[in-house]
């Protein structure tokens, strides 16, 4: 069995979100490890475009069959886009967590702090520490 997928083209948080730079904006989703642990996502409580977010604070809630989980902002800033496809197809978070399962984009007010590189995150998800 291969372990959960970690993509090389983005960074990660200790709360198992991925953060990808998209021009001046950040695109955020949850990792393959996170979706596998949460089990089937059944409801994504998407934020409103234009909402202010605070680094380390909850932006939205994912409801899965087994549990409920927060998704946190990696930096202070403003939500500029949400993946509205998730309203009808929350399972995209499970099926394609790094692609069509992206959750929101934000314009940060400054660079995000404390993100992990792919290798660091791979160690973190396997052992619980970096």
């Amino acid at each position, binding site marked *: *069995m291969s372990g959960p997928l970690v993509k090389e083209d983005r960074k990660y948080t200790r709360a198992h979100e991925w953060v990808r730079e998209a021009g001046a904006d950040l695109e955020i989703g949850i990792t393959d490890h996170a979706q596998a642990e949460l089990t*089937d996502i059944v409801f994504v409580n998407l934020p409103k475009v234009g909402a202010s977010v605070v680094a380390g604070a909850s932006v939205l809630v994912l409801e899965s*069959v087994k549990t409920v989980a927060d998704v946190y902002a990696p930096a202070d800033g403003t939500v500029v886009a949400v993946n509205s496809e998730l309203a009808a197809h929350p*399972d995209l978070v499970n099926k394609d967590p790094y692609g069509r399962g992206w959750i929101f984009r934000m314009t940060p007010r400054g660079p995000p702090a404390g993100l992990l590189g792919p290798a660091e995150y791979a160690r973190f998800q396997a052992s619980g520490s970096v």
Partner: protein
Amino acid sequence: MSGTAAPLPLRRSPLDGFHRAHGAHMVPFAGWEMPLYVTGILEEHRAVRGAVGLFDVSHMGILTVRGERAADLLARRTTIDAHRIRPGQGKYGFWLDSDGHIFDDLLVTRIDDGARGPPGFLVVPNAGRADRIEALLRMHRVGSTEVLRHNGRMAILALQGPGAKELLERRYGWPVGELKFYTARWYGRPAVAGAAGRLGLEFPDPSGTGILVSRTGYTGETGYELLVGADRATEVAEELLRAGAVLCGLGARDTLRLEKGYLLSGSEFHLDRTPLEAGQERFVEFDHPFVGREALIAQRTASGYPRLVGLRVLEPGAIPRHGTPILDGETVVGTATSGGLSPTLGYGIALAYVPEPLRTPGTELAVLLRDRRVPARVVALPFLPAHPS
């Protein structure tokens, strides 16, 4: 988000390698490492409601109790009068403490044929209670009563769903349609064909080919539980998958049982609730002496004890969970013992103990979800009625 590591090494099912080969997501459960899901909880849930699913439930306690006084022991310790179980018949009931609180729920099946040798019973308690129940049975046994534990040497496969009967008939040629609900018999014992091969105390089957098939389950669908020797378990499981069953994990088992309002050990009871509070009086045979009986009779004649009810959440996407507070007006009147999204019904459902006057279906209550009050209504159990037949 994920569970913390257990301090003790986890026990593994005889099907552990089978699960890993099929890519199961394994999790700790009641001291065992078992599959939570293989392809996905929702897909597995739908397979059981619409076709046929296969579960490994080898973590359940697998015990036999046999001897001339075996029925005395089981009748004294459970709400089931084991003296009145016919050969091949199974009964569901409760193991109580002297206050009438449920320690465990269990299935007791008489596996002797009533003709040869003393009575013998298969006793299947929950995984997390099996060690204690085994110890208590040994402690309280009298005379030559024999108590054996078979976990490790036996596996239990649960084949559940509207296609289960046809699959077994087609794959093995066993006429399992003859089995009434809560009955069991051996199939595939060439050495003991005929009436004597249907039941018998030999356990596991000495021929190595026999499978004890019980028409029971925990999904609310037509289904069968197959007791099979550990050395044949993987072969049989692979045969059932090739014949069309979908491999399922404990996640779907939980969503399936919740839609049917079935109790989960550790959620609906952990030595704090009686069968009367849990709405399970039909599984208490009051006309025999058993531990906890006096407490239940006292409770039955008193008034106003809490009752387990079903709650339907009235807002789409709002999902109650184990521990969710239940509100009547502004007052917290209970907490959800189980909760989740019903995959079949598409809305949030919960089980909760509420004060007796609030038990009536139609009563308007609320659930508190992340400090937000969401309307909910008491509904009759089960949430999901049986298929029209």
